[in-house]
């Protein structure tokens, strides 16, 4: 019976992230528009976009191979599975016993790898530019992410997000410098990974400046819908990871009643809204950086990760 409930929680959680992800993107867009004194598209516009793209036919470039056609499904699947591993409103997810935080990094890395391959596959110059820029970003973002993972794992004694969330809620963690450094590092990685300003501009029409958008320029129809859905999911995933590791309050623990779960979902919604709000404000207040400044930015994230781990040992020794 307990397993059945856990499975149910896992399924609900997977559907919740999928259902909420477009809303989060719509929310961020709406907020950004309001900050510019514009009306902005309706909140549900991303859902409509997905529906429209799903209905449209797929136009394939003549030079596209099977890699190009398969990539969207793999990207979407990998991202969704990764999102399913993050405790959003409840810990004790069934899947999380099969895979930990490092697996999440690996899944997202695979998704990125497929997308970069697809960008190269069609052989257009923009796809190539996008892929090469994306890989440059990834080569620094992934190690930085791993350092952050190590920091929190060392503190919690586990790489499983459910356990990390549980241990972060316990009183003995306390305020630590390492945690602050890891948080800043993770936020920086999240900005780069989600192609947000100042690393990339999700709203640009300038082909020459694109990173993520340049890779997917040739996609259309359901392929594009899947890739778009995957990027919505990715944004939600990163905000969820940050919330679950650094702000784990209000997460329901396995075995609590239905009321606790409902309350946890509400708390989770508030966390997402807060994350989206901060993102919108930050993006409005800053310009995009030069492409060759991105390594500096991510290098800082990596250094913060290193420092966090280092400080952890130093303070423990003291």
């Amino acid at each position, binding site marked *: 019976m307990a397993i059945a409930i856990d499975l149910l929680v896992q399924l609900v959680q997977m559907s919740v992230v999928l259902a909420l992800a477009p809303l989060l993107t719509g929310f961020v867009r709406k907020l*950004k528009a309001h*900050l*510019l*004194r*514009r009306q902005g598209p309706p909140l549900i516009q991303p859902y409509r976009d997905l529906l429209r793209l799903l209905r449209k036919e797929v136009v394939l470039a003549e030079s596209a191979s099977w890699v190009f056609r398969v990539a969207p499904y793999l990207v979407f699947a990998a991202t969704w599975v990764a999102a399913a591993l993050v405790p959003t409103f409840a810990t004790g997810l069934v899947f999380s016993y099969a895979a930990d935080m490092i697996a999440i990094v690996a899944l997202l890395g695979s998704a990125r790898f497929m997308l970069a391959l697809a960008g190269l596959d069609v052989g257009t*110059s*923009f796809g*190539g*530019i996008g892929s*090469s820029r994306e890989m440059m970003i990834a080569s620094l973002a992934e190690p930085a992410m791993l350092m952050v993972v190590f920091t929190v794992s060392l503190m919690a004694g586990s790489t499983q997000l459910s356990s990390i969330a549980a241990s972060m809620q316990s009183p003995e963690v306390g305020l630590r410098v390492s945690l602050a450094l890891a948080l800043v590092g993770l936020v920086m990685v999240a900005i780069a990974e989600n192609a947000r*300003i*100042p690393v990339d*501009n999700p*709203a*640009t*029409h*300038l*082909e*020459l*400046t694109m990173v993520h958008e340049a890779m997917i320029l040739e996609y259309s129809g359901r392929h594009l819908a899947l890739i778009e859905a995957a990027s919505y999911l990715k944004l939600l995933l990163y905000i969820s990871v940050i919330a679950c590791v650094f702000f784990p309050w209000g997460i329901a623990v396995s075995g609590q009643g239905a009321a606790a779960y409902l309350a946890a979902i509400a708390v989770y919604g508030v966390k997402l809204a807060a994350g989206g709000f901060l993102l919108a404000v930050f993006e*409005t*207040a*800053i*310009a*995009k*950086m*030069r*492409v*060759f*400044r991105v390594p500096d930015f991510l290098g800082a994230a990596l250094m913060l990760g290193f420092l966090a781990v280092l400080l952890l040992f130093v303070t423990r020794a003291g």
Partner: protein
Amino acid sequence: MDWPHTIVDREAWHQAAERLRSTEWSLLGLWGEPGVAHMAVMQAGQCALLSLACEENRFPSIGRLHAPAIRLERAMRDLYGLEAEGSPDARPWLRHESPYPFLPVEGESLHQIPVGPVHAGIIEPGHFRFTANGETIVRLEQRLGYVHKGIESLMAGASLEGAAKLACRVSGDSSVAFALAFAQAVESALGVEVPARAVWLRALAAELERLANHFGDIGAVCNDAAFALLHAHFGLLREHVLRAAGACFGHRLMMDGVIPGGLQRDLPADGERVLLELLALARKRFPELVEVYDDTASLKDRTVDAGILSPVLAQQFAAGGYVGRASGRKFDARRTPGYAPYDQLQFEIPVVQAGDVNARVWIRIQEVGQSLGILEQILRQLPSGPVCEPVARHAGEGLALVEGFRGDVLAWVRIGDDGRVERCHLRDPSWFQWPLLEAAIEGNIVADFPLCNKSFNCSYSGHDL
């Protein structure tokens, strides 16, 4: 404007090229008509026109000695079949018939990125061929002519009214500048004395156009650095200017307001009030926005040191407008050769030496301040009286140089005995700015091109004619 017209022989034509090369003279324009080549130059603040009869449709190339003339000569061949002898570049320019041979590129690990002519944004069509080494641009080659409209052929034989309408539409963002240049050329050809009120109102329209475009440009440069906040606010300011222009001149872009002999119509009764409100608003909002631009480090990081244009090149190409003034070339057609009513107005010509994107933005920012001052002076001193003088119909030839927001617009017109336009040439400042963009972008990274391009903001339509 006084301007000597000299019929020259091949020898004098060649000497003119030498003078241009030594930057003793600067080239204002080079154009043709069947069998004749014309060249407008500026020498010591004075415009002069040289004409050469082309035997067998050939003339000695100016571009061989003075690079800025190369594209003009290519256009002359495409439009009138005039062959520049010894031209270093014999490829077509405006005519799009055969496949276009781009310049060859040799070297290791270079790749080419073709961009356009259809762009993702709402801009005009033009093709850019980048040769890059990784992210670094080794060479940019432009291919223009996609919006060739045959303006010069349409002008030939047009009535003055029709030609004035056409002139407005050469480049929609500079409609007042082109209409004013054309009107001044016609007035100089026919000896028309424009009523004082019309002269002042024309300057008012021209400054409104400058304001609207500079507001739009500053915002657009910020937007290309993904700083949408300033884009939105400058867009708002631009909208206020356009609405005021619409209220005062009956059209948001002030199309067909300026006509030969004066103005289409006087300001409406509440025109001055609308303009004073606009000025008060701009005086209040603009400094706040400039402060945001100046205080946003991430934005400045993009604009400073990007796309540097050397003062030597700006001088050689006689680049007008913010492109020239951001690279140390202190030239403004409102001062040199100058035209009414600017001789009675107080204003500064901002000049900086840096030549980067930031410098071109700063020149615009300072010009906005100057334009606001000019508008205030005009509103204070606006004379009364009629706004239009009837234009006599007889033969004549006229030349005019007018400062548009982009730079100096040259207009040359020859009117026949029947009072219709025989020939007319309108030269957009972009002719001398597009090639400089190719030079300025070299060594920058591919991702910085949109920013540099926007800081030049050259016209496609005005250039393609």
